[in-house]
């Protein structure tokens, strides 16, 4: 129940039948840390969380809380709190009773239960729904109940499985701040699963990026954001333009790659030589539109999407490659534009296996009907 | 398939001598009588296929019978043509007017009825005008015991009481309303004890009720079937049980009771006789009635009646005079030779016979027994 200094996962794995949903997870969580597990759908985030909570027995590895091995303890003995991806609210209890449940289980005095419950209800802004049953709440309201239910206990470790995914943007921002604040003021340790990089970046002290059940990179938000370890991580972190090309020239970590009938310069993210097959990655935000009369990279606008302050555009280069770019100018499909890539923001990754390369985004596969 | 459109055959008119064409009969047995008479019926069908082409038998417990027939009659769709029943079912139906009156209208078609044994004749009188006695036996009450356990069986009522007192829980009889021997014992006691009016259980049985209540103190429980008392006797949890001729012989044939079991009677006992009847529900077509009358007459011939010896099931069984065991099928003769008792002939010859209580009085007696004898066990235990 009481806090710990370190929580160590050693070679943790979970297999369903013949498929590894999670493999070889090594991770040390320091007291007070806020860790985000990040990765695409189905990569094993929930599985990892469930293993940590004790809800899924491990099929490999062990978990240590300081010197105590805890992967053999049942969930209720670990004293962790958890917010489930699908809420898992008790359908027969009111919002208030759902939230008070854990406190009652701890046999706290009635008074305290009431006080803390009300405070938590206040926090998630459900005061007027406190006496409803979960079935009468909207999806977002349900999720807020789930958050309040887990955090009201001030557990030594809080596990959260995409707790904000059903909230609206405004509330999501507010709850983010709130969760962060709770984390700090209660001295919690938090493991937070999300597929939203922005959320992960803004909340976590450290990110664990996963793919196909395996860790790809562990690092601070800045590390992961600016220096993704592999092109897969880059892909996931918003480097939406992924171009399988051959390096033209390599000098130290400066690489030149061909693009749209010209060449551009990038930063090498690993060992590579001229002529190697590589993957160039750049975020749409770092691909900006100028006007067409400037020399250099050029293309034709294909798709324009309104995104509030900026427009998201897709530009077709002369060689057929499509680039995602941003602009704050009003542009129209069909327009010819010049394209600049923010210097230093084009990352170039070695790509070993030929099967392991992104598909050139020539034409997105539609639904054949 | 439902036969809603079937034209109703004539059911009330004159009954012809012979059905226009061979009929098929549904016979319902609620008394276990087919055990004795099915052979006779099958024989008739074999010999007179021009009268009865086919018979289907069904069996059912008696009590629900009248409800079923009533339901059919209310709907004008009677599909039970002949019922074989004991006194209880017969009088229940009579009370509710379920049966066709066969007598004296068709007495001339049933000449066999003139040959009834005297006690069977008395049973026939009890039946009124609807039932025809087909089998008869003197029944009981008898006491049955294992000689190995009871060296000196009680010879009169007081001795039985004394034995019960000395051997608590070792004397047993089944709840009268669930058991033939039980009710025979109940109806027989007033004669043994010399009660005021053996036919009036409410006002005339003072001694009987006092006796049963006293005996009750030494009885552990009353099983709800004769078979259980037989089992108790066989496995030694009981030493003396009440019985009848049939219940004495047949279970020993079947092997539920050891062969060496013996019987005795209490001083001053009268046989309380029993019989099975054939009745025809109202609503049966005249053609079928004709066939039934022929069948019944056939069944009342000595050759057929001899089949009623069976394996001592209703010993002796035949309702008419002059039917010898030697006329019975060989199997039957063998069983009775092995398990029958020579003393029965004498007991039957030497002791008076009485008809059982009528249905109403019997129910009253059961009710009183339940309330005052059987039911009192709750309070005392």
């Amino acid at each position, binding site marked *: 129940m009481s806090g710990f200094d370190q929580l160590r996962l050693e070679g943790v794995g979970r297999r369903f039948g013949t498929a590894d949903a999670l493999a070889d997870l090594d991770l040390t969580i320091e007291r007070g840390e806020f860790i985000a597990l990040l990765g695409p759908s189905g990569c094993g985030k929930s599985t990892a969380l469930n293993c940590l909570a004790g809800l899924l027995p491990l099929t490999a590895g062990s978990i240590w809380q300081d010197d105590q091995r805890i992967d053999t303890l049942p969930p209720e003995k670990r004293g962790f709190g958890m917010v489930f991806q699908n809420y898992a609210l008790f359908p027969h209890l009111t919002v208030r009773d759902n939230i008070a449940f854990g406190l009652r289980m701890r046999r706290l005095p009635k008074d305290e239960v009431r006080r803390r419950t009300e405070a938590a209800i206040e926090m998630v802004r459900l005061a007027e729904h406190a006496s409803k049953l979960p079935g009468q709440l909207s999806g977002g309201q349900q999720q807020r109940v789930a958050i309040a239910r887990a955090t009201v206990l001030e557990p030594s470790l809080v596990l959260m499985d995409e707790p904000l995914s059903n909230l609206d943007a405004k509330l999501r921002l507010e709850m983010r701040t709130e969760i962060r604040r709770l984390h700090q003021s209660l001295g919690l340790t938090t493991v937070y699963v999300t597929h939203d990089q922005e959320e992960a970046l803004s909340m976590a002290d450290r990110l664990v990026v996963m793919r196909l059940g395996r860790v790809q990179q562990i690092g601070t938000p800045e590390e992961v954001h600016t220096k993704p370890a592999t092109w897969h991580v880059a892909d996931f972190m918003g480097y939406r333009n992924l171009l399988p090309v051959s390096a033209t020239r390599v000098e130290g970590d400066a690489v030149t790659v061909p693009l749209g009938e010209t060449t551009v310069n990038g930063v090498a993210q690993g060992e590579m030589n001229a002529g190697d097959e590589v993957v160039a990655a750049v975020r749409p935000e770092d691909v900006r539109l100028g006007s067409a009369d400037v020399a250099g990279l050029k293309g034709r606008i294909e798709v324009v999407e309104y995104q509030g302050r900026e427009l998201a555009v897709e530009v077709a280069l002369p060689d057929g490659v499509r680039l995602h770019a941003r602009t704050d100018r009003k542009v129209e499909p069909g327009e010819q534009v010049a394209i600049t890539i923010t210097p230093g923001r084009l990352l170039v990754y070695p790509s070993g296996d030929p099967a392991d390369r992104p598909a050139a985004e020539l034409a997105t596969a539609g639904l054949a009907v | 398939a*439902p036969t809603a459109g079937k034209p109703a055959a004539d059911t009330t008119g004159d009954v012809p001598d012979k059905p226009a064409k061979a009929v098929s009969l549904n016979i319902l047995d609620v008394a276990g009588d087919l055990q004795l008479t099915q052979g006779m019926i099958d024989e008739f069908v074999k010999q007179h296929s021009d009268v009865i082409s086919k018979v*289907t038998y069904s*069996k059912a417990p008696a009590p*629900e019978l009248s409800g*079923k027939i009533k339901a059919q009659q209310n*709907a004008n769709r009677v599909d039970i043509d002949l019922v074989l029943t004991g006194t209880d079912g017969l009088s229940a139906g009579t009370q509710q007017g379920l049966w066709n009156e066969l007598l004296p209208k068709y007495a001339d078609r049933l000449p066999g009825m003139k040959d009834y044994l005297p006690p069977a004749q008395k049973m026939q009188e009890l039946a009124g005008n609807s039932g025809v006695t087909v089998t008869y036996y003197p029944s009981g009450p008898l006491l049955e015991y294992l000689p190995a356990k009871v060296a000196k069986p009680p010879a009169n009522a007081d001795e039985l009481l004394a034995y019960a007192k000395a051997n608590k829980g070792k004397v047993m009889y089944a709840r009268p309303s669930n058991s033939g021997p039980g009710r025979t014992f109940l109806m027989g006691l007033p004669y043994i004890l010399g009660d005021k009016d053996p036919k009036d259980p409410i006002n005339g049985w003072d001694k009987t009720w006092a006796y049963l209540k006293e005996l009750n103190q030494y009885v552990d429980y009353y099983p709800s079937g004769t078979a259980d008392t037989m089992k108790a006797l066989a496995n030694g949890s009981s030493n003396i049980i009440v019985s009848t001729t049939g219940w004495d012989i047949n279970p020993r044939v*079947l092997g539920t009771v050891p062969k060496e079991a013996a019987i005795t009677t209490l001083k001053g006992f009268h046989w309380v006789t029993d019989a099975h009847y054939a009745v025809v529900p109202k609503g049966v077509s005249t053609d079928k009635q004709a066939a039934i009358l022929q069948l019944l007459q056939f069944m009342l011939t000595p050759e057929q009646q001899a089949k009623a010896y069976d394996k001592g*099931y209703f010993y002796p069984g035949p309702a008419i005079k002059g039917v010898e065991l030697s006329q019975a099928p060989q199997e039957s003769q063998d069983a009775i030779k092995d398990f029958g008792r020579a003393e029965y002939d004498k007991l039957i010859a030497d002791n008076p016979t009485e008809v059982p209580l009528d249905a109403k009085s019997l129910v009253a007696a059961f009710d009183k027994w339940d309330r005052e004898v059987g039911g009192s066990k709750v309070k005392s235990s």
Partner: protein
Amino acid sequence: MIFFFVNLAGVVGSVLVSSFGRRWFDTWLPSGFTTDWYGDAWREFGLLHVITVTLIASALVVVLSVLIGAPAAYVLARQNFPGKRLVYLTFLLPILMPPITYGIPLATVLYKFGFAGHLSGVVLANLVPSVPFVILTMTPFIEQVDPRIESAARMLGAGTRAIFLKILTPLLVPGLLASAILVLVRTVGMFELTFLTAGPDSQTLVVALYYSMSAAGIRAQQSVDAMAIIYTSMMLVLLVVALRFVNPTQLVARVKEEPE
């Protein structure tokens, strides 16, 4: 639980042994074994026919009562409407009321319309308590199914029939099975209504069994035991067949399996 099983085995075993016993007095085991009792029972009641009738009748009752009862259970589980309590009571009554109160008039009605005296009468009469029984057992099962799943099917163009067949039925298999088994047991064991409406060709096993047990006359204990064993074996076969095809917990468990 062990105790329950041991005693159960004792109860069943003693009947089984007894039904094969030639004579069994004050001993641990009978003095000899025989199958005569079965042969006798078989012949006396023409059991082959009786069992066939029983099987057909009970199968019909089960199927019909589910077909009639399940939709009603569905409405009662899903919807609140004025008069719901009254409807509920109407469905409760046939279970609460002993057949004595309505058996005879019911039989009269059935005879009047020409149903009784055949298999159809037996089936119809047995449906009276069975339909409400299905309704009562099914209602909580239906309550457990998330209505959104149904909504989804509707949106995909499934009409009421398709929803019942393609969505609810598979999800309700445990419930359907449970109530079908219970209805089956009740029907096979329902003496009174069956007797009142059965014709000579449509006697069921329970009528024969009741007869052998409680009719007047002498009957060897063992032969009753044999009848009871026959009755039970038949039920057992039905049950095992049912469980073979669907395990009561399998379907839902497959959907949301607990790890381990």
